[in-house]
């Protein structure tokens, strides 16, 4: 009687039972191999492990089914384990602040990529000047806290909202123009922002802003070293957990938005703007919202970056940064939050791991974007069909039975 076809694959019961733990082991192993060990061989091994599992997943439908079922059934456990893992990793690497630094940058990158995904992934508007919002946020926050003595929290929020305002502003031309126009507008906006940051006196010109204070929580600076049980922890660890809080918050927001009408309507705009309009969707409002929200996340990321590093200059926010973030979104999977996070994680960690190949970094980014778009434009994890709680369908069944009876 159930109108929705369920995949009751009884054949793979054993596999189904152990699939989630296996999945976890693979993820943990590849994360550790890639991130923690300072060695190109383990990095490659870790990446290969990830890629291998991924290919197995896509090649064998049965495995795919089991994995999907496992993920669906054990969602809560996976999330909890993920959080535990995110909590534990820096503790195990506390003697290597550099690795924690990489992880912090990865966290910030994920926030950035989530924001860009609102525009490029969900709404389908090209944005090639995203780094400008990141820069606006970083500069707003840095200026407010160094020149006006604002507290970190005020600066952070202000950074988010100022960036969102700029996002809204840049979104305006999208209302009347086509996608390639928007690409041009965003590139132009990115360049203009870069030039302005570089030339204006109050932004510190090309030398940027230094001595940006660390965030304080009830008067306790994040730059202080924590000592516990005779161990002292590097200051990066404070930041790691601090940024992690924001990351979890932003992920939650991204998921909420994705699963709400906003996310759905963004998709409608992306799929067919005219049909969306004629379905009663105010596409202009939604496009601006997508820009503003994406920029808000970029602003928050910028503020976190500025207060973590303590120094920013226009170089951090140029066209290459925009492309880098775009690469994360495309590689991970347009409009898939988990995918985008994975893409951001890989593309922010990998360059650090292949430092000796730094000359090829931008070439690699370009190639990844190009090849992904040409051969797997859905990214590592393709965008999913939204599925709703089964309970939402129950009433329908009852009614339908009545109708039939």
């Amino acid at each position, binding site marked *: 009687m159930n109108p929705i076809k369920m995949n009751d694959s009884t054949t793979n019961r054993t596999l189904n*039972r*152990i699939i*989630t*733990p296996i999945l*976890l*082991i693979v993820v*943990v192993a590849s994360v*550790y191999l890639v991130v*923690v*060990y*300072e060695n190109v061989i383990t990095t490659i091994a870790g990446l290969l492990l990830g890629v291998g599992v991924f290919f197995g997943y896509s090649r064998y439908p049965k495995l795919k089914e089991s994995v999907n079922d496992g993920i669906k059934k*054990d969602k809560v*456990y996976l999330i909890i*384990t993920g959080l*535990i*893992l995110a909590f*534990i990793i820096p*503790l*195990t*690497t506390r*003697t*290597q*602040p*550099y690795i924690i*630094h*990489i992880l912090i*940058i990865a966290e910030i990158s994920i926030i950035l990529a989530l924001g860009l995904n609102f525009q490029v992934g969900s709404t389908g508007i090209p944005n090639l000047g995203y780094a400008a919002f990141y820069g606006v946020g970083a500069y707003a926050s840095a200026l407010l806290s160094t020149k006006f003595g604002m507290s970190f929290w005020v600066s952070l929020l202000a950074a988010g909202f100022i960036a969102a305002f700029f996002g809204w502003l840049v979104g305006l031309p999208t209302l009347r123009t086509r996608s390639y126009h928007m690409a041009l507008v965003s590139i132009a906006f990115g360049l203009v922002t870069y*030039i302005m940051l*570089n*030339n204006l006196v109050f932004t510190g*010109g*090309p*030398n*940027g802003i*230094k*001595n940006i204070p660390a965030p304080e929580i009830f008067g306790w600076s994040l*730059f202080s070293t924590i000592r516990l049980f005779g161990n002292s922890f*590097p*200051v*990066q660890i404070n930041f790691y957990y601090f940024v992690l809080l924001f990351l979890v918050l932003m992920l939650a927001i991204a998921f909420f938005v994705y699963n709400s009408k906003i996310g759905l309507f963004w998709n409608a705009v992306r799929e067919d703007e005219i049909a969306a309009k004629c379905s009663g969707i105010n596409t202009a409002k939604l496009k601006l919202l997508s820009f503003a929200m994406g920029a808000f996340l970029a602003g928050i990321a910028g503020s976190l970056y500025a207060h973590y*590093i*303590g*120094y*920013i*200059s226009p*170089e*951090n926010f140029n066209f290459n940064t925009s492309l880098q973030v775009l690469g994360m979104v495309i590689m991970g999977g347009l409009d898939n939050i988990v995918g985008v996070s994975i893409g951001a994680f890989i593309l922010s960690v990998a*360059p*650090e791991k292949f*430092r*000796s190949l*730094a*000359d090829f*970094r931008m070439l690699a980014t370009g190639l990844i974007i190009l090849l992904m778009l040409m051969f797997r434009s859905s990214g590592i994890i393709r965008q999913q069909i939204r599925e709703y709680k089964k309970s939402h369908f129950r009433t329908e069944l009852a009614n339908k039975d009545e109708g039939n009876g």
Partner: protein
Amino acid sequence: MVKKILLVLITILIVASLVGCGPAKPAEKQTVKIGFIGPLSGGNAAVGIGAKNSFQLKVDEVLAAGDYPYNIEVVYEDDASDPATGVAAATKIASDPDIVAAATHWNSPVGLATVDIFHKYGMAQIFWGTIHRDIIYGNDYKEPVRVIPTSEQSMELAAEYAKKFGIMDWVIVNDTTDYGTKIRDEFTAAIEKRGGKILEAIGVTVGQQDFAAVLSRVGELDPQGIFYAGVTTEAAGVRIQSMKAGLTDVMFMGPPGIQSDTFGEIVLGDAEGTFCSGTFDVNSTPEGIAFVEAYNAKYTDPFEQNGPYAYDSAAIILDALKAVGPDKAKIVDYILGNTFKGVIGDIQWDEYGQNGVGGLTMYVNQDQKWVKYEDSEYASGVRTFPWDK
């Protein structure tokens, strides 16, 4: 239920095992690590690689002498001229307990970004390439010292020569990078101190190709000299187009940033008689000549302008290590408290850690090569400048 328990168990197991083992670190007592950071990739890679080779050259020479108490391993990291990458590299070097000191950076924004990190970890940081004043003077840290002269010192020299030639009305064309704006301000100060005048400073962007509008403005101002504050590419464009625009009898000068033979290669004949207030002339001392010979015997990449400074940075670190042993804090104190002898001359710090002796040199372009002015045919009177009538 079984599954859930299993799940939690396995998770705990994984985590516990990973906490337990962690990456092992081999500790060899004989070997001491020192760090080097520079732009090893990207547009400034040539400079970075020249400095890296020079740094390694000194280390090899010291080790080859045989009486050095430690085995030295150099950890090279790339900052790609990018502050974000530089910060990662600096964190990697500075937080590594096995590394005792490091020589760093060519780009000022990178230096500004990393100076705090080295301070936080109490590691000696010797700048072999950045010229921004604030890196040393903008803080009261003990850790950073700088062997290369500041742009301020370089511009004092430039202004001194300008005065010597009696060219006192200048127009500055600067690029809008940290380098260009810094040079602009410092040249302005140095010229005005000597009674000269800056008629106007005009900013251009890196990557700009057409300077016709800028030069038309310069033409209206009718200066005696054009100072280009920036680097080779745009300097060459400005020089070529200024000659085309008829500004032929004007002195043309630039900072160390244009001291590359590419300038002559691009500008060709129009490069003749242009000036560059440059860095140390290695060929002026016996130690320098020895360095050049040793370098060229080993490497094919040119050592560029900063090679000698990187070479001396290595010497300073190795001296300090030999004197006080592999102790970060002691090395910091030793470096700041002593003077050293290097190919660029005697290295002496002021109270902030800036080397006083620059080894700065004024060059003039003669047959598309930069030649020390005193050794040139202009100084000897064989050739004359167009403004000498």
